């Protein structure tokens, strides 16, 4: 039985939610390509976070944990109907492009592999450190760095003049 949260600090949760939820939704949108699916998965992840708030609130890499939970939710959905997600579900009402972004950038992101999109989303949308990116992806830090580097190179080759950002520089 999961520990029942004693007296959850609602205010702290709400503050975290309002700062992290938009970034999480945007990150998941980069990963899965669908803002609605991303928003649903993010909402469910926050519900689970609040259920375990006493524990989650003390976490060092709370956002990384949250992403992993959301990513599992997405994966479960994808597994449930693997073929449909590949071929069918996306026809319906899905905006082909995210109008908020430059079209070239959005298309280029779509060309990346799933792992590369994860890395880009975690680093540049969710704003995690490289170490947290590795934690969120469940890989070694070097692997995360390499994935990020490849992803940036590929984006750059897809979009002319995409600037290289030196990695390892924490923001």
């Amino acid at each position: 039985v999961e520990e029942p949260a004693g007296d959850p600090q609602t205010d702290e949760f709400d503050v975290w939610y309002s700062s992290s939820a938009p970034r999480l939704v945007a990150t998941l949108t980069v990963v899965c390509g669908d803002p609605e699916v991303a928003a649903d998965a993010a909402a469910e992840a926050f519900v689970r976070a609040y259920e375990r708030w006493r524990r989650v609130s003390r976490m060092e890499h709370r956002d990384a944990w949250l992403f992993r939970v959301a990513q599992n939710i997405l994966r479960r959905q994808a597994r449930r109907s693997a073929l449909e997600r590949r071929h069918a579900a996306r026809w319906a009402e899905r905006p082909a492009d995210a109008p908020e972004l430059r079209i070239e950038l959005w298309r280029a992101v779509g060309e990346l592999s799933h792992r590369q999109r994860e890395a880009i989303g975690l680093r540049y949308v969710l704003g995690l450190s490289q170490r947290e990116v590795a934690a969120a992806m469940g890989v070694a830090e070097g692997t995360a760095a390499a994935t990020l580097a490849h992803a940036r190179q590929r984006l750059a080759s897809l979009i002319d003049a995409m600037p290289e950002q030196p990695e390892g520089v924490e923001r």
Partner: protein
Amino acid sequence: MKALDEELRPLVDASAARIGDPGPLRERARRRRSRRRIGLAATLVAVAAVASVPFLIRDEGDDPSLRVTTPDSTPRQIGDEIRIAFEAVPEGATGYHIDLHRFFVVRDGERVRAFVDDAQHLPGERLWWCPREKQFAAPTHGETFASDGTKVAGPAQRDLDQYNTSVEDGDLVINLAQVIRGAPSTASSTPPGEDSRFTTPWNRGPSSYCQGALTTDGVAPVRLPSRVSVFTAGPEQLVTTNDHGVHLIDAQTGRELALLDDRAAHSPAVASDGTVWYTVGGSNEPSSIWRLDPTDDAPAQMIARGFAPAISPDARFLAYVTGADESEGNILVVRDLSDGSERRWTGLPARDNTPPSAGWISYLAWHPDGTHIAFGFSYGFEHTQHEIDVVALTSDKTLADAEALPGRLIAPAWTPGGVLLAIEPEATVDGGARIVRFEDLNAAPTSDERFRGLNLYNIDLSADGEHLLARSGSDVFVAESDAVLRRVAGPASGASW
């Protein structure tokens, strides 16, 4: 040119508009927590009060406070009793699985019995209720019991155990603490192999025995029965997959005949020799291809890395897809099942500036004469672009010169006469799909509007070419040549004749 995080920033701003207030999310979390607390409290009470195994009502609902006021086919657990509104208990047998407790309730008018779901022989072996025979059966050694629990045949040593039941205030009360042990059996104990009907009927007996078996979890998680070679002989039976496994379905009645319990199975294909092939896993995990010979007990893994199996019309070749390699893209493989040799087709074409590696092959379909394979090819961002290509197996192993059919099409299938059918999604004004027919691959197709308004995901023709199945969402429909459309199965993630 701005930095990447700044470039992506508008997506965060737009997402802020997509998120709701945290209040409802907190409320959802609170409800779940309180459900767990109730469960915990019930466990403690039960342990303290009766010092027996803790039991909890398996929680399906959203809000426990609602369940208390809801009448009443839902079993309610109070202390060591399960209560069900007597009038809600169906005639015949119903299986219940409430936390650790599994039992069948058999109602015959005013007479009700609750049988412990225990086949008495192997630990964990579950009973089947055979609705047509009105008997219980145990799948491993074929013990059978009458609907009053009396042993009929097989090696069981006693009748079925029962829970004590009573009726109070309109409720059937099942007392889990009072088990009435079955009487020692007086019926002759039939050694395995001597009674052709009751010993392992699912392997050797008539395949019609215990059709549509019911367990306390719903349907029977068992091997397929032996006589499934009729799979492709006609329109009688089809195979579907869903979260419970691979199902054999009577195409006329939609009744489930058998189930192979493999929850990760999808993309089934039935070969002309009656074997069933399917994919396990996928999406973010490696997928493998399995073969189920209905005359064997267990399915066998045939391909460690691959998906979308399709068996040639002569059942000699397996075609599948592998190699989600980032640089190379998908590969079409044809394996000779007689000697294990393989031929590989690489070189997916680039489309719309999409590198081949970003495309997916799936939905393989053999031409009836075995010379060509049609496949679906999806590409573009999130694979929203679709086409069907046809590759000649005499070609020099490149997919680049495969012939692409005009139009946005998925899920090819051939008729026995060599007509190619495919699904054109979102083709009609109401957003539904259309099935198109290519009598000649070089000529414009004709269209079939029978499935108008449905979003179709896969189609397949019966071996006689007279029956078409189509899956829409999780529903499987069958259309006959006279245009009658019937829903026969679901939920399903895939279907095949």
